């Protein structure tokens, strides 16, 4: 789709490629969100995270989110990629880069996309610890997010 990249990658995420994708002579602002595995979660040392992903649906959700952003901020260029697999501390798990004519919409668009991704994308974190068994993290339920065009039957 023109000016939208929505993907899942098992290779390291490439910040330079994302910036090149959103490059536009008419856009004076580029903002990025780079999600990175940190070494501590709720006071517990973390050694890495495995990201489980349902790729076909994740790519569809990312594309829908990008189209929503372009509806709100016309002309915006959007790059969204999420990593699938294991990353040690410091690894890049998600990359969102947008460009727009001015900084206000570039900041707002980037913030919108990462907040929506956290609520909607079919991605699951399994945290690994240096001194204990791994754990799947709790998250946001997707129940109730079904397309309203198909209504549940009463009862």
């Amino acid at each position: 789709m023109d000016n939208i990249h929505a993907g899942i990658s098992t290779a390291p995420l490439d910040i330079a490629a994302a910036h090149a994708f959103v490059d536009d002579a008419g856009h004076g602002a580029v903002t990025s969100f780079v999600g990175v595995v940190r070494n501590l979660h709720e006071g517990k040392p973390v050694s890495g995270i495995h990201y489980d992903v349902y790729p076909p649906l994740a790519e569809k959700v990312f594309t829908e989110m990008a189209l929503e952003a372009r509806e709100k901020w016309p002309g915006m260029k959007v790059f969204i990629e999420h990593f699938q697999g294991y990353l040690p501390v410091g690894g890049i798990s998600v990359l969102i880069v947008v460009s727009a004519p001015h900084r206000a919409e570039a900041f707002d668009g980037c913030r919108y996309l990462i907040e929506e991704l956290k609520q909607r994308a079919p991605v699951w974190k399994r945290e690994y610890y240096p001194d204990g068994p791994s754990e799947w993290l709790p998250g946001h339920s997707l129940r109730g997010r079904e397309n309203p065009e198909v209504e549940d039957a009463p009862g």
Partner: protein
Amino acid sequence: MNPLSVKLRFFGAMRRHGDALDLQLPAGSSVADLRRELVALIGEEAATLVNSCAVASDSRLLHQQEALSGEHDLALLPPVSGG
């Protein structure tokens, strides 16, 4: 009518039950019936997790009362935690 054949893929915390399960359901079964049949197969202790999951195809989330038909490749999606 022929029974429904469903391949249900597991993600996140559901992977403790494997990567996928093949289920046979009576014709006319709904997503809710699929959920009940799954709990019957893997055990009542999984009911809370199964009920927190959405059921999806590779392109959309399915409604609870939606009728299934034909062969299905579906996914059971626990609460999400990406980013």
